[in-house]
């Protein structure tokens, strides 16, 4: 008996849902379905991108399936495979790794499902890319330091997690600028693992070994920049050292406003998120789209911080 009931209920349910989807089709507006896999929802910047995607999707009537890859490329590939199985219209991927996430792109393309990379790249070319060039962000930050120091002085650099795309590209950008300024010396560089507490410890140790020799700190993200800043403030050295980092998270903007952090580089999470969804919709509808939508970086200093705080 029980079985009969459940079959009955199930079939009623199925019927109802069939009907519903038919209705949508009838109205001529089939909802576009987009699968999104994100590097990590533990990262504030990614959370910002995700929030913007959700907002934009609602606005355009797109159905979003959002999942967290938790920094694991393998997991990300599995998620993309499941999107393929669900027959989504477009996949948006915020890749974990340049190489390791590439198979996901290959698989999606093989299944004839368009895939868009957002924020960072993979070695296999996707259907479209929306994001910013990390190398550029570091160039902007380092250029600022060079200008402030008059092209002369000692810099220390705090890396992100070694081997990650963002770390590699930000290091590359910084080194390009350093090459242009031979009198700008890289005194030391170590990883702060994107972590505020770790960078604070690192900066304290550097202050011990280099003392007042350090003229500027370049941290590859704001969390680490703020950690270094705290260490410098505690040691009473902030007035003598320039601190610049990247991402323009809320804490960093506050610090710029107070004048403690000298500059951060604004990477436009909102435009990246919105741009990705807009591109996805264009592709799904067969409209023309930009294969590489570059969202420009902006240097944030005390002078212009106001406009970013409002955003």
């Amino acid at each position: 008996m029980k079985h009969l009931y459940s079959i009955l209920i199930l079939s009623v349910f199925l019927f109802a849902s069939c009907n519903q989807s038919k209705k949508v089709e009838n109205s001529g507006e089939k909802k576009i379905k987009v699968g999104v896999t994100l590097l990590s929802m533990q990262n504030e910047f990614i959370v910002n991108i995700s929030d913007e995607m959700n907002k934009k999707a609602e606005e355009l009537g797109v159905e979003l399936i959002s999942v967290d890859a938790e920094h694991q490329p393998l997991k990300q590939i599995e998620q993309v495979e499941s999107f393929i199985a669900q027959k989504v219209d477009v996949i948006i991927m915020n890749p974990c790794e340049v190489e390791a996430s590439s198979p996901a792109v290959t698989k999606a393309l093989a299944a004839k499902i368009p895939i868009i990379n957002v924020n960072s790249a993979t070695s296999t070319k996707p259907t479209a890319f929306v994001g910013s060039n990390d190398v550029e962000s570091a160039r902007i930050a380092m250029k600022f330091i060079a200008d402030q120091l008059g092209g002369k002085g000692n810099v220390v650099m705090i890396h992100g997690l070694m081997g990650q795309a963002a770390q590699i590209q930000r290091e590359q950008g910084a080194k390009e600028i350093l090459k242009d300024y031979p009198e700008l010396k890289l005194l030391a560089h170590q990883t702060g693992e994107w972590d505020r507490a770790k960078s604070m410890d690192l900066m304290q140790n550097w202050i011990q070994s280099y003392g007042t020799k350090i003229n500027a700190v370049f941290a590859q993200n704001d969390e680490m920049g703020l950690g270094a800043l705290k260490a410098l403030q505690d040691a009473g050295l902030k007035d003598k050292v320039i601190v610049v980092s990247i991402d323009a998270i809320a804490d960093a903007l506050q610090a710029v406003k107070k004048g403690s952090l000298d500059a951060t580089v604004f990477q436009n999470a909102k435009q990246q998120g919105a741009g990705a969804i807009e591109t996805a919709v264009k592709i799904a509808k067969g409209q023309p789209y930009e294969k590489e939508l570059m969202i420009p970086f902006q240097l944030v200093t005390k002078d212009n911080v106001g406009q970013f705080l409002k955003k």
Partner: protein
Amino acid sequence: MQYIKTLRQYGIFVVFIIISLILSFISPQFLTVSNWTIIITQASINALLAFGVTFVIITGGIDLSLGSMVAVTGVTAAMLAHPDTFPVVLPIFAGLLTGLLMGIFNGFIITKSKIAPFIVTLGTMTIGRGLALIMSKGRPISNLSDSFNFIGGGDVFGIPFPIIVLAIIFTICSITLKKTLLGRYIYAVGGNEQAARASGINVNQVKMAVYSISGLLAGLAGVLLTSRITTGQPNAGAGFELDAIAAAVIGGTSTSGGTGTITGTLVGVLLIGVINNGLDLLNVSSYYQQVVMGAIIIGAVVLDSWNQKSNS
């Protein structure tokens, strides 16, 4: 036999002295008051966690949830520590209480279900991380009051507050383990759980106590960390449990239970701190730092197993 035990502690202490001497020769900044103040301040958070896990390991257990507890308690404290909201006592108390409750939860599941502590605390570790992200919505919680930030950043007569906290907790933990009933029972349960039960010891109560202590100290570490970096980070403390366990093991706590001291653990913590600091001072690449640290942990465990063999 007594002298072998002390020799073992001296053993790691000697290693500590030798490494410190080498570093002071290579780096002139190493052996300065200001540098040591920094080393101890930086080590204080790991020390609190390592003390807690020492209690747990002596009973033959393990606590893998330390890092996550740091995140949850830190976020809890940060949420209540905005300026002009509550008196500073409240966030501190809330952080400690959250840690204690998580510790009690660990102890409760371990004693009631008889599931291995490794598995239970692995579960709590994941749950804790999730809770921290839920509570903070994945974003760091900043804008904390100055009085709250004093805990991790301030100093009293030139001594950083974390060092004062460390000294107090060290004394309490040491005395607890050496001089109290609980301390003796902890050694007994780790040395031979069945015999401890047959001697009339309430083994479950002892286990509840050690996991609660571990949780409480993780709470304190969470509050201290949050205050030090002036923000509550949901992803703070990842991997901290491994540093804490390493410090305890380096300091002579046997992972099979029954032996270990708080002093030994403190030496382990300082050794890790000194190596981190020294390698930074010398600007040794982070890659090599990891290799050196791993080698020291293995060395300590090998030393430990040799001593156990020579004991029996």
